[in-house]
């Protein structure tokens, strides 16, 4: 697979994981 495609998939994965983690922490802080 082209490295550019891997790079852009990696960017999406990194930010998705980060925002899932952030959402989890926001919920925990509000409880």
């Amino acid at each position, binding site marked *: 697979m*082209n*490295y*550019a495609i*891997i*790079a*852009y998939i*990696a*960017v999406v994965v*990194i*930010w998705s994981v*980060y*925002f899932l983690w*952030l959402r989890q*922490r*926001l919920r*925990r*802080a*509000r409880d």
Partner: protein
Amino acid sequence: MNVSYPSWWRPLGRALWGAAFLLLAVSAWMILSKAPIEVQMGPVQKIVYVHVPSAIATLLAFGFTFACSIAYLTTKSWVWDAMAASACELGLVFATVVMVTGPLWARSAWNTWWTWEPRLTTFLILWILYAGYHVVRASLHSGAKRTVSSILGIVLFVNLPIVWMSIQWWRGSLHPQKVTMTGDMRATLLESMLAWIVFLAAAFVTRLRLEWAREAAMDRESEMAPGLARHGRDPRDPAGPAGGRVSA
């Protein structure tokens, strides 16, 4: 103490997220259809449209951490510390994007995943040190957390000019000092930079809500049990010295 965020904060976040998604969509369209395929590297060159903007966003976020850390030590207002920590966390995520996309570029351009050239080495040191900021911050629970974090936010800033100037200060840099680009390539890169900077601003607004929520929770705790919540709970408490709360 008033720890609720202002009424305009959420609309501001929504507006920034709208702008960020629009700009990122335009950026994706330009990367796919407008920016030409580079003759030597082929499509792999298009990594530059996310790698360089992420590096710029990293430097902006850590620079903002530096400014907010100074503001906290000057005013002792918790909001500045919250802003510094939020910007620093986002800066580290952007730096991680740079660290992941960089080797993918390097494998095609330099035929190696990693080399100890000045820009790569100084950026790796930057990543490790700012990761250390969060490790130190998470390990402290009392009022020292904010002061120590702010001092780190100021001291670690020394790395930024070193990363920026590394390609001029040391020989053997594989990163070019000047890049020749066609008009469409430059336009795509500039648009991508703008998109990721607006994305950084939107993510910052969202991340700061976490600090507000935590501060509000601490405020509630201190109202219920004065003297315990602010300085850590009784260590004999089964929830632990921090009351089971995960620190920023």
